[in-house]
């Protein structure tokens, strides 16, 4: 019995890989989605344009080169947080989740598929950063350590943010509320030291920034990509690698404890009646 159960779960997980692959492919053919993947590279290109010739105060280091790693960190957080939140909310309303529930082990397939898809698409948008990034590559530190650390931060970043994204998405009453999450993320960028060194902000704002994963993912990416002497621009003059793993790890734990509870509660609520209600609302009001 347990062998059969495990077989069935593995089959579902493998189906999830297929789902992830298909949905990634579908997403790359959808102009609306592709626009999203280009969003960060474009933002970065614009930032570079404006910062051209500006250097970090007191040094001759290109400000643009300092921003690139921060944007890498931000891309991971965005891909892992906003993406799943929006998808979960939409999939609940349009009946995708209900179908997953009606299929044996369907939720396993669904979740594996989502993780694969968000991993792949986030990776794509980070790789796209290389295009504008080439112009400042000379200022960066790029060696084996960089790639290793970036890979670790990428995986840890997704592990940290996806469960939280899933939990947040489950809490929203309707898909249209996810816009609020996006707005909130944007506001959080200010104290997260992405576009401007966090040390230049008032102390209380620094503390706010340090609560959320955005800052730490940015810091991690900076520690991977910036020359060692740039550490002086950070809080305490240190990359605080241990603290980074600590804080991100704590968020991951919170996410993995909270997400299944919230998801289960939400999945219970997903019903034909709820889907019909959402459909009627969208038909009547257009959102």
């Amino acid at each position, binding site marked *: 019995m347990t062998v059969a159960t495990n077989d069935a779960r593995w089959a579902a997980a493998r189906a999830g890989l297929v789902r992830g692959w298909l949905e990634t492919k579908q997403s790359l053919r959808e102009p609306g989605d592709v626009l999203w993947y280009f969003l960060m590279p474009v933002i970065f290109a614009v930032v570079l344009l404006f910062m051209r010739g500006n250097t970090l105060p007191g040094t001759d280091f290109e400000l643009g080169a300092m921003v690139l790693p921060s944007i890498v960190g931000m891309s991971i957080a965005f891909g892992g947080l906003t993406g799943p939140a929006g998808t979960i909310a939409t999939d609940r309303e349009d009946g995708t989740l209900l*179908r997953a529930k009606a*299929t044996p082990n369907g939720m396993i397939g669904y979740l594996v598929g989502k993780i694969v898809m968000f991993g792949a698409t986030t990776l794509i948008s980070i790789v796209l950063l290389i295009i504008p990034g080439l112009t400042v590559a000379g200022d960066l530190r790029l060696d084996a350590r960089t790639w290793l650390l970036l890979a670790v931060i990428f995986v840890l970043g997704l592990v940290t943010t996806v469960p939280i994204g899933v939990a947040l998405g489950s809490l929203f009453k309707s898909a249209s509320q996810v816009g609020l999450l996006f707005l909130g993320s944007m506001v959080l960028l200010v104290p997260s030291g992405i576009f401007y060194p966090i040390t230049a902000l008032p102390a209380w704002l620094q503390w706010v920034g340090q609560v959320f994963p955005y800052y730490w993912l940015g810091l991690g990416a900076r520690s991977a990509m910036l020359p060692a002497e740039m550490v002086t621009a950070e809080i305490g003059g240190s990359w605080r690698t241990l603290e980074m793993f600590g804080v991100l790890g704590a968020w991951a734990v919170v996410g993995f404890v909270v997400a299944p509870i919230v998801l289960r509660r939400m999945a219970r609520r997903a019903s034909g009646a709820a889907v019909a209600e959402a459909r009627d609302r969208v038909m009547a009001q257009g959102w």
Partner: protein
Amino acid sequence: MTQKQPSQESTDMAIDVRDLRMRYGTKDVLTGVSFAARRGEVLALLGPNGAGKSTTIEILEGFRTRSAGQVTVLGQDPAHGDEAWRARLGVVLQSWRDHGRWKVRELLDYLARFYVPFSDPRIERPWNVDELLDAVGLTEHADQKVKALSGGQRRRLDVAIGIVGKPELVFLDEPTAGFDPHARREFHDLVHRLSDFENTTILITTHDLDEAEKLADRILILDEGTIVANGSADELARQMAQGAEVRWTADGRRHVHAAEQSDPTGFVRDLLTKDPGVTELEVRRASLEDTYMALVHRAETGQSGPGNDQAGTDGTRAEEPHAGQPRADGSVSGAQAPDGSVDDGTSKNDQTQEVRS
């Protein structure tokens, strides 16, 4: 019934519901629903909006937790149904815009994968996707995106998704809403095929009474949270004595008699004996719609006992003496139909034959 023998029950009963109750807050949606479905049976669940049809189905599907009562579906309590149990169920959901970017075949292939481990010697799971596409008539559209399908095609895809795992029991919630007559006909053929060749038990909810009559072995009428009638379309019509309508022409005049008795044979025999000039004789049993309206009306005016599932076996109008005996001259003395309408044979002529919906 077979209360003490759950093992036997699980072999020949697909659904067994006893005194099912559901309450949201202070509102009672189901106030004691009892019915059963044998394996291979096709059941139609009818009822006005808000009668509790969807709630009942969602409880049976394991998507909703009931407040009270006993429910057994394929031998398990749906509230604790495991994945192996789920693999034996087919749920046909009304799609809207989910999986819009998926191609039809991709989606069926993907969903079929989940059922492979649940294949057993009796039933090989899942359906072969090509055969399934053919069975629902979507072969030509296999490589189309789901969002590009028409409403009828999408509905057939919903059915295909519902049965891809070769379920032993299928729930169809208003399957043909929005179908054109042709699509409806094809869908009915598909349901017949499922029940005849695959011995699939099917529970269907619908607002379409014709559909219920065509597809179902047995019809359940749910009203105000309880089953008010349970039987074949024929049985329901017979239980409700209202029904038969006899029309004939005599002396160039068209006559209509609404027999209050469910069996108009006696009336017709009398009529033919007494008036040899009768032509164009026509006997029409009340349509399921008439029966349905009467049953719901009776339930809502409190004329039947609460929570019964054999409504209409007693205390119905069948026992009442019926008005309007045929006279020797073949005319009818103001026969009064149970709904209070009076026909006198003269005011109604050929156009009354168009009354049926």
